[in-house]
C-alpha cells in the first residue's frame, strides 16, 4: 500500500489527511505549535501512523508524497514580522510603493492612518537606468549606483532585497544585471527581481508583489529548510510539496524563491477538496461555504474548477498580482457579536468574541451575545454534545445575555431576538454567496452547497433556502478540507507575459512565441519536480478588454498543443464579448485589446477517487438519540425534532426534516421539508423541497 499525506498548519490545529491508493481516507488533528510548527507536524504524522497501525518509519517508506499548507507567509505580513527589505527602483520613481496608486480605502473616515510600506523610504534606493515602452534602453544601467546601493543597504543591515525597474517586463536586461551585482555584493541577503516574480505591465502591482516576496522569503525559506531536514531525519526521503494561493503545489525550493505565491494559500486548497467530494456524487458545480468561529469563506466552483482572481490585497492594503483561488472572506462566524446602536438597530459583527472568551454560553467570561448563543437558544446546538461532548456550554448564560443586550432594549422576547440575530448573520453570508455567484452572472439555483467549518452545517440549510439552492453536501472530512485539498492538488506554475496589442493587429507569431517561451520555462520547473511528460498539461488564458478599458477579463484559451491561428483568435474575441455581456449586461462595438497572456504549466498527480462504502440500510431509527424543541422560521416556532447520532449513522440512512444530525465536529440542521441521507462517500446529502 502507498500513501499520500496532506498536512495543513492552522492557527489552532494542525490537520492531517492520508489517502491510500485504494481511495481510503484517514484524518487526524493535533494542536499546533506556533513556535516551531514542524513539531506539531511530526507529532501528527506519528499519530497518523498509529491510527494506520504502523510505526512512523514504515509509514514514511510507503508514503510517496507529503503536501504541506502553511500560513507562515500570511502571518508574516499580517503581524509585520518579515525581513528588513531594501528596494532598488528606477531613479525618479522612489515612492511608487508608498503611494499605492493613491487609494484611500475609506474616503470618509479620515481618522485611519496611511499604511506603512513594507519597505520604508530610506531603504528604497533610486538607480540611474531607464527602459522605454518598447523595451529600448533610454538610460543605461549605472552599475556604480547599484554597487553603492549595495554598500549602503549592507550597512543598514537589510535581510532581503527587491529589484523592480520600469518596463522590466518588456526588457529585463537591467534587472538581470543589477541582480548579478547584488548577489555578488550581498551574498547573505535574500534577493529577487520583478521579472522573475511577475513580469507583467503596471509597475505598482509588479513592485508590490516583488516586495512582499522579499518580505516573507527569508522566513519561509528558513522554515521550509528546517521542515525538510526534520522529515529527512525521521526517514522521509520522497517528495515534499508546498501549496500555493492558486491551490497548486510546488517544490519547496521553488516556494523559497517565489515565496509570495504562498501568501494566500491558507484557504485556497479547501475549494479543491470540496470539488473532489462533490465529484464523487457527480456534482461539478458547487459553492463551498466554510463558517468557523470568526469568518465565513465562500468560493464558487464551476465545472469542477474553483474560480480564480488575478489580484488581491493582503491584510486589505498590501497589493499583489498573482493568480489565486478566489475565496471571499466575510466577518461572519459563530463568535460574531450582536449589538444594538443608538437607534435600536440590531447589528451582527464585525466584532467577534473569538475563542477566548468566546460566546457567552462557553462560560469563560464572555459578556456579549454571539451567533453561537443564538443558535443554542434556538435549540440547534446540544449543550451536552458540543464538540462531541468535549466542551460544556450553558444555555442559561446564552439566554441571559441575549435577554439583557438584545431582547429587552428592542422590546421583544428572547426567542424573537435570537431569531433576528440569526437572520442577520445568515443574510451577511447570503450576501457573500451572491457576490461570488449572482454578481458573476451565475445562478446559485444550479449549484450545490458544499458545507464546511464547525458552524457551517448549523446555518447552511437556511442560506440554501434563501438562495433557492436545491441541495447541500456535508462531508465528514470537511474539517480537514485544506489538508485534503493539498493531497489532491496538482503541481502548478503560473506564468505570465504582457503583449498589449489590439486584437485586430495582433502579431500571432509573437503571441505564440510568448506561449512557447512560458511553456519552456514551465517545463523546466516540471522537469525539476520530476513530472513525466505524459502527466503534464497546460492551461492558457489571455486578459482582454475593450480598447481603452482599464480592467480586463480573463478569457480561457483551449490548449491543443497547436499554435493560435486567426480562427481561434476570432473565437477568443467572441468569447470575450459574451463574457462581458453576461457580467455587465451589454456588449460593445469597440475594438478589443489583449494585455497579458498566461500559461500554467501543471503536473497531474494521480489521485484515486474516494472509495464508496457498501449500502447498509435506509432506516436510521436506531441512531435516533432523542428529541428536543428546535426553532424553525418557516413554521414559525419550536417544533419537536428528532436528534440523530451522525458519527455512527450508516450508508444509505435517510432522515426527514425537521431533524438534527449531531457529529463530533459539527451539527447539521435539517429543516422541515428537507431530507438528509448518508452517501457511500462519507458525506451527507441534504435535499430541499420548494
Amino acid at each position: 500500500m502507498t500513501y499520500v499525506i496532506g498536512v495543513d498548519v492552522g492557527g489552532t490545529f494542525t490537520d492531517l489527511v492520508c489517502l491510500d491508493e485504494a481511495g481510503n481516507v484517514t484524518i487526524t488533528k493535533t494542536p499546533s505549535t506556533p513556535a516551531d510548527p514542524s513539531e506539531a507536524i511530526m507529532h501528527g504524522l506519528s499519530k497518523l501512523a498509529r491510527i494506520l497501525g504502523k510505526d512512523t518509519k514504515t509509514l514514511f517508506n510507503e508514503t510517496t508524497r507529503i503536501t504541506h499548507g502553511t500560513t507562515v507567509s500570511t502571518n508574516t505580513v499580517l503581524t509585520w514580522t518579515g525581513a528588513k527589505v531594501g528596494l532598488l527602483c528606477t531613479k525618479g520613481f522612489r515612492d511608487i510603493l508608498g503611494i499605492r496608486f493613491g487609494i484611500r480605502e475609506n474616503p470618509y473616515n479620515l481618522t485611519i492612518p496611511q499604511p506603512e510600506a513594507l519597505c520604508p523610504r530610506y531603504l528604497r534606493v533610486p538607480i540611474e537606468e531607464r527602459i522605454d515602452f518598447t523595451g529600448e534602453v533610454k538610460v543605461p544601467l549605472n552599475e556604480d549606483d547599484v554597487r553603492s546601493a549595495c554598500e549602503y543597504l549592507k550597512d543598514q543591515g537589510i535581510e532581503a532585497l527587491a529589484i523592480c525597474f520600469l518596463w522590466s517586463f518588456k526588457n529585463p536586461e537591467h534587472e538581470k544585471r543589477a541582480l548579478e551585482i547584488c548577489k555578488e555584493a550581498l551574498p547573505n541577503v535574500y534577493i529577487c527581481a520583478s521579472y522573475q516574480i511577475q513580469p507583467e505591465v503596471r509597475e505598482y502591482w509588479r513592485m508590490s508583489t516583488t516586495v512582499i516576496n522579499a518580505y516573507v522569503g527569508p522566513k519561509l525559506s528558513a522554515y521550509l529548510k528546517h521542515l525538510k531536514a526534520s522529515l529527512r531525519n525521521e526517514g522521509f526521503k520522497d517528495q515534499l510539496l508546498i501549496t500555493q494561493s492558486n491551490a497548486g503545489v510546488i517544490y519547496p525550493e521553488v516556494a523559497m524563491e517565489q515565496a509570495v505565491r504562498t501568501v494566500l494559500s491558507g484557504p485556497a486548497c479547501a475549494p479543491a477538496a470540496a470539488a473532489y467530494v462533490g465529484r464523487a456524487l457527480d456534482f461539478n458545480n458547487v459553492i463551498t461555504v466554510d463558517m468557523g468561529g470568526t469568518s465565513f469563506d465562500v468560493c464558487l466552483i464551476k465545472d469542477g474548477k474553483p474560480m480564480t482572481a488575478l489580484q488581491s490585497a493582503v491584510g486589505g492594503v498590501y497589493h499583489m498580482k498573482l493568480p489565486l483561488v478566489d475565496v471571499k472572506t466575510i466577518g461572519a462566524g459563530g463568535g460574531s457579536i450582536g449589538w444594538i446602536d443608538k437607534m435600536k438597530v440590531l447589528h451582527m459583527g464585525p466584532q467577534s468574541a473569538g475563542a477566548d472568551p468566546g460566546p457567552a454560553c462557553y462560560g469563560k467570561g464572555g459578556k456579549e451575545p454571539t451567533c453561537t448563543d443564538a443558535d443554542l437558544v434556538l435549540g440547534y446546538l446540544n449543550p451536552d454534545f458540543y464538540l462531541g461532548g468535549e466542551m460544556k456550554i450553558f444555555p442559561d448564560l446564552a439566554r441571559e445575555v441575549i435577554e439583557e443586550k438584545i431582547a429587552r432594549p428592542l422590546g421583544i422576547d428572547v426567542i424573537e431576538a435570537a431569531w433576528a440575530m440569526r437572520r442577520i448573520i445568515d443574510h451577511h453570508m447570503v450576501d457573500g454567496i451572491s457576490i461570488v455567484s449572482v454578481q458573476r452572472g451565475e445562478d446559485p439555483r444550479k449549484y450545490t452547497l458544499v458545507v464546511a467549518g464547525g458552524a457551517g452545517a448549523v446555518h447552511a440549510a437556511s442560506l440554501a433556502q434563501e438562495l433557492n439552492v436545491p441541495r447541500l453536501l456535508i462531508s465528514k472530512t470537511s474539517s480537514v478540507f485544506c489538508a485534503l485539498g493539498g493531497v489532491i492538488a496538482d503541481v502548478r506554475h503560473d506564468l505570465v507575459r504582457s503583449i498589449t496589442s489590439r486584437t485586430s493587429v495582433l502579431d500571432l507569431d509573437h503571441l505564440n512565441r510568448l506561449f512557447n517561451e512560458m511553456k519552456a520555462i514551465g517545463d523546466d520547473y516540471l522537469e525539476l519536480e520530476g513530472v513525466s511528460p505524459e502527466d503534464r498539461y497546460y492551461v492558457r488564458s489571455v486578459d482582454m478588454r475593450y480598447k481603452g478599458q482599464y480592467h480586463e477579463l480573463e478569457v480561457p484559451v483551449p490548449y491543443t498543443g497547436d499554435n493560435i491561428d486567426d480562427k481561434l483568435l476570432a473565437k477568443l474575441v467572441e468569447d470575450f464579448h459574451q463574457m462581458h455581456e453576461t457580467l455587465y449586461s451589454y456588449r460593445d462595438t469597440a475594438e478589443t485589446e489583449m494585455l497579458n497572456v498566461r500559461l500554467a504549466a501543471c503536473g497531474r498527480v494521480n489521485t484515486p477517487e474516494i472509495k464508496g462504502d457498501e449500502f447498509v440500510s435506509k432506516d436510521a431509527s436506531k441512531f435516533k438519540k432523542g428529541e428536543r424543541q428546535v426553532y424553525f422560521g418557516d413554521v414559525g416556532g419550536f417544533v419537536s425534532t428528532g436528534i440523530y447520532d451522525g458519527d455512527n449513522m450508516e450508508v444509505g440512512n435517510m432522515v426527514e426534516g425537521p431533524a438534527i444530525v449531531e457529529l463530533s465536529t459539527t451539527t447539521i440542521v435539517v429543516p422541515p421539508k428537507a431530507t438528509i441521507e448518508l452517501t457511500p462517500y462519507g458525506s451527507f446529502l441534504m435535499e430541499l423541497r420548494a
Partner: protein
Amino acid sequence: MSKKYQIRINPADFSVLTSAIFTIAREMGLNMERTARAPIYFSAHDFCTSILNLDAELVALAEYIPVLVGATPFAVRAIKEFFKDDIHKGDVFLVNDPYTLDGGNQMADWCIVYPVFYKDKQILWIANKAHQQDTGGGAPGGYNPNAIDVFAEGLRIPPLRIISKGRERRSVVNLVMTNVRIRDVQYSDLLSLIGAARVAEKRITSLIDNYGLDTFNTFVEDLLAYGEFLMREEITKIPDGQYHSEITGAEDAPAIVCDLTVKGDELIVDFSESGPMSKEYINSPIANTYSAVYQAILQSLGKRLEIRCGGCYRPITIKTKPGTVTHATFPATHGNCTNFVAKQIIEAVWAALAEVVPKEVPAGWGSIPYWVFSGVDPRRGEGYGSPDFLACASGAGALWGVDGWSSNGPVICSGTLYYPEIEVCEALYPIFWKRWEWAQDSAGPGRWRGGMGVHNEWVAASDPQPIFLHYAADPYDYTPAPAIGGGKLPPVNKKELYFSDGRKVTNEQVRKEKSFFLSSGDRVVDFVQGGCGVGNPWERDVEAVVKDVRDELVSVESARTDYGVVIDPTTLEVDMKETEKLRKAMSDGQ
C-alpha cells in the same frame, strides 16, 4: 432632539435590507469601474452611483468620488419637474445642464436618470453620474479656461429622454454624440452607466419579491430617518453658536464666505456673503455647492458614521445668493467648479467648524496644478486627451492625531482617484516620464504633518505631432486652508516649461499664458504641494521628526526651523539638549 425617530419594520428586516441595498449600489459602481473606457472614469473614479426615493432623496450610494454624490438629487428633480407624468417603464434620461432646472453640477458630469419600476409602479430612481472625457464646446476635455459663457464650455443637455420604453432614441443619441470629440469611447461609457442601472434594477426587483412592497417602502423611509438621526446626534455635540470663515486662497478668486450656525441638532450653512461671480470659469452652480457642503460635513462631523444616505442631509440647511460665486446663474462659466470652487467650499466649512471643534476637522488638502494634454498619438494615429493625473498627487491635510496621507489628493476625490501607472501612461500618451516621487519639505509642518506632495516631470515624445497643453486646474499659487491649531501651510505649487531650443517658461508666464504647444524634447516640470498641518510643529514627537528626516521627507534644515529638532546631517543623531532649548524658545515665542 426635537423629533422621535424609530425603525418601524422588523429589526432583522431592517438590517438585512440596509446591507442589501448598499450592496446593490456598490455593485453598480464596480460594474461601471470595470467596464468604463475613459481614464477619468475608471482611474479617477470620477463618477458615482445612487439609488433615490421618489422624492429624490438619496437612499443608498457607492463611495466613489465624494463630491458628486450630493448632486444626483438635483438631476432627478430636474427630470421629475420637466417630464412630470410622462415617465414610463424602460425610459432612460440624460442631463448635464446646470442652468435648466438646476439639473447639473458641471457639464462634463453627465448623469443618467433611470426610473425603477416594480411591476407597473415606479418605486425608486437610480441616478448614475460620470465625468466624461469630453463634452463638446470650445476646448477638449470639458475645461475651457477661455470660455466667455456656458455655451463655449460644452454641449448643454437639458432633461432629455434617450431611451423611450426600452428603445434607444437613435437620432437623439446621435445628436449628442456628434457633439463630443471622442464619440466611440463616450458612447461606450454611456452604455456602462445604463448597464449598471439595469443590473441594479434586477437586484431591487428580487429584493422586493422577497420582502413585499409595503415592507420595502417602509424600509426606505426608516433608512432615511436612521441617517437623519445619526447626523443630528453628531450636530448636537457641537456647542450652539455662529461660526465664520472666509476663503480666498488665490489672487483673482472671489472670496467664499461661510457663516455656519449650530442650533441644537440643526446646522445652517450660509454662503450669501460670498463674492460676486467671476469672469473666470470658477463659478459654482447650486448643485455643486450643495454637494461640496455635504462632503465637507460627512468628512468632519460624519466621519465615523456607518451609514451615509440622504437622511444625513436633512438637518443641514444651505443658503446661497444667486449671482454669487457659490450660486452661479445663467450664462456664467463654471467648468472648473468641481475642482476648484468645490475645494474652497469644503475648506470654508472646515475652517468655520475648526473655530469650535478643531480636533474633529481635517486640515486643508494640497491643491492640484495639473495640465490637460491632448493631441494625436503618432504611434497609432489616434486622438487622445486627458488631465495629467500624476500632477493631482497632492498631499492630504492632517487631522488631530493622524498625519495627512501623502499623495492622496485632490480633496474632492479623497483617495478615490487612482493615479494611472507610469507604464499605462507611457503606452497611452506620447510622453516620457522623468520623475514622479515625493518632494522633500512639500508638506505643511505640524504636530501632525500634512501628507507629502510630489515632483512630476515629463518630456514630450510626440514628433511629428505637437502636444497641446493647457492649464485648467486650480490657480496654482493657491494656498490651501485651514491649517489648524498651530499647524503650518505647505509651500505653493510651481510649474515650469523647458523647451528643447533652450527657451524657458517661468511659473509666472505659465500663469498668464495658460496654453502651449510642445514638440519632442520639450519638458514639463511640476511641483505639487502637500497638505496642511495640525498642531504646533514643535510639539511633534521627536522620533517622528527623525524618521521623516531619515526618509528624506523633511530636510535637516526644516527639522530645525519648523520642528525645533536639531539633527546632525551626517549621523542623523538628535542633539536633545539643543532641541529642548530650541523648542522652549519656539513655544515661548508663541
